[in-house]
């Protein structure tokens, strides 16, 4: 099951040049671009591992593509996303986020039902991949 989080996730995979243009758009708006990776695809997993520092003072997006490729070398079988952080007062938040790398095989999620008091049923989802310990998911 294809993970659809953030922008462009229903589109075909972005090429390096697509990534460069999107990142350049973020840089031109004055946002700090950073690269993050994870092997836990749960939608509520907001804090991914940082790949280096956010790039606050790079005028050109070639540096972002360079870092994405470096991250692919080290974590090619995990999810990698590019973020753009807007530091202006009032926003102080992520303005862009898109996945640039994903595992070859994405097993998807299962529904877990928990029976509570009375006849209450609580639903949650769990990634099949997350059953394995960290580092051993996605082969």
């Amino acid at each position, binding site marked *: 099951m294809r993970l659809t989080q953030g922008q462009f996730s229903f589109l075909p995979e972005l090429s390096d040049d697509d990534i460069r243009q999107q990142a350049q758009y973020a840089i031109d708006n004055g946002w700090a671009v950073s690269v993050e990776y994870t092997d836990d695809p749960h939608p509520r997993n907001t804090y991914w591992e940082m790949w280096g520092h956010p790039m606050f003072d790079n005028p*050109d997006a070639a540096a972002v593509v360079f*870092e994405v490729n470096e991250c692919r070398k080290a974590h090619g079988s995990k999810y990698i996303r590019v973020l753009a952080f807007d530091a202006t007062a009032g926003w102080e938040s992520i303005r862009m986020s898109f996945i640039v790398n994903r595992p070859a095989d994405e097993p998807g999620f299962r529904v877990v039902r928990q029976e509570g008091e009375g006849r209450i049923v609580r639903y949650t989802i769990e990634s099949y991949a997350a059953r394995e310990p960290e580092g051993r998911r996605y082969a």
Partner: protein
Amino acid sequence: MTDAQTPTPDRPATVDLAAAYEASGVKDVLNEMDSTMIGLAPVKGRIRETAALLLVDQARRQMGLATETPTLHMSFTGNPGTGKTSVANRMANLLHRLGYVRKGHLVTVTRDDLVGQYIGHTAPKTKEVLKKAMGGVLFIDEAYYLYRPENERDYGQEAIEILLQVMENNRDDLVVILAGYADRMDRFFDSNPGFRSRIAHHIEFPDYTDAELLQIAEVMLNQQNYAFDPDARAAMAAYITARRGQPHFANARSIRNALDRARLRQANRLFNAAAGPLDATALSTITDPDIRASRVFRGGLDVDRTRSRAAE
């Protein structure tokens, strides 16, 4: 989609180099360089040649004759104060106009910015600088300090390896300019053959002549709304000749320092001597004594004098 399916874009049958020259704005950069930089004839010549080469290459690319990005990494060799950084700035502008770098900014670094202090510190530091320079020009001043043959565990070697790798793989993204004294750069290239083969353009910066330095001094003063009186101009010419023979002579930079000190003495003189109100001419004229008071006319710096006395 495979290449066979992509339609070939329309290619022009002819190109108008003169029009491309006008449109790219290269002319403005070259003219500005001619008018604002004094002397440096061989350097200007080389830059003109490079600009012509890149313009032709651009035209060839439009017609589908060239596909590879030409190697644009350069080395600037010359004595201190011969305008290497200024020319690098204009080079960045030129390459930007021609579309060979996307942003055209200049990042100036020395060994300290690239090489770390402990194991594992160098690679992130160098990569950080390289990332900052992407889309522009990376200017490495006194590049030979990167390589220290006397210490085999020096981290400079690590910085050099990363640099070489990025210079080769990211040729579209950044242009590296190495700068330094001619003889030490030659030794640096001899011990790092990888660099020599990756650098296509070696540009040598000659020393300025005395007449050029005097001209530079006047331009510098004009920019600050000062002027020489005729006696002071003669004194400055004598100063330049005397200064050249003394140690630590740094061409235009020495001149700038001399002028700063002359302004200091002029201010002091006005402060002590002036009795009545001063007009604009008095406030902006450098006179003969302001220059003649320099230590250069008494045989150089005090340290150098004591050293030569000790040698006797």
